[in-house]
């Protein structure tokens, strides 16, 4: 089933600051879309709008043609998983219990056999079976990130939203997590949208790239189309050289005065 998200003309204001200003974009299933842009460009806000966490002051988000404001939050939670940027510092639960929170949109009191099976599958999918009985607080940053992804998977979503899934991770874990996300997108035909800072990782793992500047879409397209020296100079104020062999690589030269 092809899930399509249509974001139409979304504007979000926090007080006098416009976090998003007339953003429109269409997202397809089975594809990984990356949102890049400098700090404060509106990446997180865009993800939260798609998830219905933030209500835009203008504009609409459609999920398969349905206005998400008309979908109950609990129904939406069965279709969209969201991996937050900042995991809680302390969570007094075991890994199994944490991943089981992803079943919240389905359960009323007891975890059914199916719920438990789904939790187990989600843990296997991200490779954290061995952590099942450990406490969340005892885990490393990379392990926590995997637990949170497993939690989102336990929601059995069609859409997976990730906010900076690789920040605070070493390069091995960065690659592991992004490979995992790519595999999930292909296998489960998920619509994946992630906000990400690292342009090189973003270019390597995404099909479509959205470059935001001051709450507006500055450029959109394949990584090669978006990551040009001109765009990066304009959006980040940084002079770069782009290498293309074997992967696209953005090499910063210096800050534009």
């Amino acid at each position, binding site marked *: 089933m092809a899930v399509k998200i249509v974001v139409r003309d979304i504007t979000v204001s926090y007080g006098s600051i416009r976090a998003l200003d007339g953003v429109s974009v269409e997202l397809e299933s089975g594809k990984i879309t990356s949102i890049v842009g400098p700090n404060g460009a509106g990446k997180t806000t865009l993800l939260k709008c798609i998830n219905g966490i933030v209500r835009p002051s203008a504009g609409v988000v459609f999920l398969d043609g349905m206005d998400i404001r008309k979908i109950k*939050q609990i129904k939406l939670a069965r279709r969209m998983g969201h991996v*937050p940027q900042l995991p809680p510092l*302390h969570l*007094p639960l075991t890994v199994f*219990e944490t991943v089981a929170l992803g079943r919240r949109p389905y359960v009323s*009191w007891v975890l059914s056999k199916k719920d438990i099976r789904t939790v187990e599958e989600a843990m296997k999918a991200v490779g954290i079976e061995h952590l*099942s009985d450990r406490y969340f607080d005892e885990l490393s940053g990379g392990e926590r990130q995997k637990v949170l992804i497993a939690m989102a998977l336990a929601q059995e979503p069609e859409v997976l939203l990730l906010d900076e899934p690789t920040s605070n991770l070493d390069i091995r874990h960065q690659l592991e997590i992004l490979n995992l996300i790519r595999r999930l997108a292909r296998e489960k035909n998920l619509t994946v949208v992630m906000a990400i800072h690292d342009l090189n990782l973003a270019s390597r793992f995404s099909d479509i790239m959205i470059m935001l500047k001051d709450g507006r879409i500055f450029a959109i397209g394949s990584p090669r189309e978006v990551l040009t020296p001109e765009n990066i100079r304009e959006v980040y104020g940084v002079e770069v050289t782009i290498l293309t062999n074997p992967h696209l690589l953005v090499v910063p030269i210096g800050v534009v005065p």
Partner: protein
Amino acid sequence: MLASGYTRMSKRRVFVLMLLVLALPLIVFISMSVGVLPVSPLGLILASLSPNHEVNPVAWAVIWYLRLPRALMAVMAGAVLAIAGVVLQGSLRNPLVSPFTLGVSSGASFGAALAIVLGVGIVGMGAYLIMANAFVFALLATFITLGIARLRGMTAESVILAGIAVMYMFSAGVTLLQYVAREWELTELVYWLMGDLSKASWHRLRYTVLAVIVCIPLFKFAWDLNVLMMGDDAAKSLGTDPSMTRVACACLSALAVSIVVCMTGPIGFIGLMAPHLARLVVGSDHRFLMPTSALIGALLLSTADLVARTIMMPLELPVGVVTAFFGVPLFVHLLLRTRREIWR
């Protein structure tokens, strides 16, 4: 099986719950047997079984009209305070929160003080004036707190800060009334403010049952409180409405606690301590945490009241003093002993 650890843990939790359930009738039974007038447990059973109570009618009256309602009151009041404590700590994501954080106890105290010192009240007279006043002002304090917090989007911080502000306001009111009170009024007020269960009766027990019933819908929020541990945004994306959960938990628990406090006065510490003790034994899943807290709260208050009644017999101590004197060292000991961080 990945879930084997979870299943094992769940079984252990159910077992702990059953043990606590079994302990309840035991403590009620002991409470009924011990006191200034000693009654043997066997005589007690005979007394309650024989319809024409040929056994000592005084003993029968003491047990039936004094000790039993008081023991049941301790059980129910303790459970209500503990449940309110656990849902408020959970929904406000703060380990220092107690049922009184919303201003319930200071509101109730102010209401009682108004009735005792100035004789001003909403309805009723005498003891009922105090009770009705305490109840109304406890709810009023809660609504002021939630009203202020609403202006700031009902975030956890806004509720706590508003609650503390309201608490100070009503406490100042109580202090003022103490200042203008005459000697005998002051005595009564101070006694009321200590909080105790000596006024328990079958009649008052009916209201306490009502308070317990008010707490029942709170169990519906167990999963919501679980996902709230992840933070507001994550809770939303899991289908929980954080501010709705907070308002519902705050209103229901404030109502239940107001009913209890207007009869017993502010009995502190149970609502703070019971949830933490429960976390030590069953972990933080609210489906287990809520009933366990309720049972631990019931047992704690029953035990504390038993000690308060008997430790300096025939003198009775206020139960609040006992919870503090004996509860705090136990609590600190248990908290220090655990290796793991039980609070997030």
